[in-house]
């Protein structure tokens, strides 16, 4: 990860009843956002709470700006935390919620609160009781409250979990714009927790995927999407997961048999006769009515082409989830435009194409 690491978590372990966080390490650089994803119950919120100092850890270390903060209470860590449901103080007005974080900051309190509210476009909320605010206003207010004390690290825990889907898309765009400006201006490192992959891709250039209390993989999105490190990561990312058997390795390409079909991919360290898991991203698959490679840029690449029939079409918004039986099931996402253009329906014969370089082999 480029840039100076503002937040450094090393070998963090913690136990809460029967659940534990195990040896978690990652860094977040100044001005960067780490998207922390994982299924429900994987420990994302617990990890944030450990970083914020709300929960005690058993071992490991947390550094902020090069200073060890592991033993410090939350009030001494200079971390802004926006929890899942905002948790604005109901007995205080909107501006009082923000100034709450400025107890020791002297006479310029009201000026700073006003400035922060103007910056986030919530000046009209001054004096309002938080019970009358919309989900988006609450979320911006919680962000303002966390930012007013000029933290080095900002932790956002599923800020849109309680917002309806339509508002969520709009708010996500607004938050992304605001956070970009915040990060650029304040140079802070942030962690954005979500279980929504699209949201995570939008908010963070780097991703950490959690599973049962440990981090399965940390890295830039491109790398994780290109070469997932484990079956769990591939499965969580929605990859097609197939059991295969290496039949040959030649010129750096491995041929793997899956349900009687041969899939070609970059061999890496694979050897013949080995059993492997084949992972293919749904975004790497292209559809064509003919065997010939449809995408011009792929024509000089090693490609896999399989003929099959469409078994499921599930339309959601402007895209459709399509399942194809090519001897083994392949799932992919196509635009409704392409669906119309190719005149696809259940039972249609179709060719699924994907480059050998897009195939990941997992042990």
């Amino acid at each position: 990860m480029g840039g100076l690491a503002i937040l450094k978590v090393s070998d963090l372990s913690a136990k809460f009843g029967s659940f534990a966080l195990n040896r978690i390490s990652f860094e977040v650089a100044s001005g960067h956002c780490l998207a922390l994803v994982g299924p429900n119950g994987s420990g994302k919120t617990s990890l944030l709470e450990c970083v914020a100092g709300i929960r005690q850890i058993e071992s490991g270390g947390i550094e902020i700006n090069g200073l060890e903060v592991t033993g410090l209470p939350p009030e001494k860590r200079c971390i802004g935390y926006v929890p899942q449901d905002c948790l604005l103080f109901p007995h205080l007005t909107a501006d009082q919620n923000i100034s709450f974080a400025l107890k020791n900051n002297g006479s310029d309190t009201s000026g700073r609160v006003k400035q922060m509210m103007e910056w986030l476009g919530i000046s009209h909320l001054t004096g309002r009781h938080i019970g009358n605010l919309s989900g988006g206003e609450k979320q911006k207010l919680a962000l303002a409250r966390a930012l007013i004390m000029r933290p080095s690290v900002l932790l956002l825990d599923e800020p849109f979990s309680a917002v309806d889907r339509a508002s969520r898309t709009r708010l996500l765009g607004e938050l992304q714009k605001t956070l970009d400006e915040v990060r650029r201006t304040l140079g802070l490192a942030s962690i954005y927790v979500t279980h929504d992959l699209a949201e995570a891709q939008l908010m963070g250039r780097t991703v950490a995927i959690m599973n049962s209390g440990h981090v399965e993989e940390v890295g830039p999105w491109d790398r994780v999407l290109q070469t997932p490190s484990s079956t769990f990561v591939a499965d969580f990312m929605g990859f097609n997961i197939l059991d295969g058997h290496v039949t040959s390795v030649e010129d750096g390409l491995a041929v793997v048999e899956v349900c009687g079909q041969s899939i070609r991919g970059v061999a890496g360290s694979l050897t013949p006769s080995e059993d492997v898991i084949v992972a293919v991203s749904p975004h790497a698959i292209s559809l064509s009515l003919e065997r010939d490679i449809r995408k011009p840029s792929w024509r000089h690449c090693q490609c896999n082409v399989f003929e099959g029939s469409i078994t499921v079409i599930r339309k959601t918004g402007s895209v459709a989830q399509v399942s194809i039986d090519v001897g083994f099931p392949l799932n992919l996402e196509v635009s409704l435009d392409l669906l119309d253009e190719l005149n696809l329906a259940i039972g249609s014969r179709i060719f699924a194409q994907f480059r050998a370089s897009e195939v990941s082999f997992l042990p």
Partner: protein
Amino acid sequence: MKPPQGVSTFKLFSGACLAFLAVFLLAVILSVCVFLNPSTLAAAFLSDEVAFAVALTLLTATTATLLALAVSIPAAYVLSRARFRGRDLVDALINIPIALPPVALGTALLIFFTNTPVGVFIDSSIVKFVFEVPGIILAQFVVVSVLAVRLMKPVFDGIDPRYEKIARTLGHGELDSFLRVTLPMAKNGIFGAAALAWTRAMGEFGATVTLAGATRFKTETLSIAMFLNLSVANLEKAMAVVVILLAITISVLLISRKIVYWGVLPS
């Protein structure tokens, strides 16, 4: 008979139960008022004995309630938030003064201050409780403090502890977070508990009479004044005291409800 349209039998039954209780209590109260004629009541109000009892009751009940709150608020908070070994035992122990008859509680206090070295030392060298005014405050304190803990624990249970955690991340220490977040959020519940505890202290009799005794113009609270007048068959005066006690407690309960409803308590 069929219930009116839109009202279920269950709701009708529940309403009837509430109406029965309200009418029953009102009938009891009215019977006391009807028993008294205005001149007897006026004479009782103006008597030195009743004035003394009112003043002493207000003083002791208020002091006991304030002391009880000072102890009960932190105690209820810890009982609500902390998870420690023996928590269930402590919770059960706190129920004892509620379960025991007040007379038994007063007897236990009397034995402690007259028959144990620590109790005797306190009574003789620090504060004299036995058959004295501090004894009234102590008896009321013991009864109402546990009641206040029981009433306030659910108030703290209902406040998400994460509010305090958020306050911590916003630069406030543990005590500051409690004082600036949890306490203001619990204010209505605490005020309601305080009002109920105060009225309970106003009417406390069993533990008070056992520990502080029933001495005219010395330890004569309203409930003891009622007892003393009943014991000499002065029924009119005893009932006048009851009316005064009822008037004070009903007024306080009504006013406290209105205060909580109007939300006029400071944040």
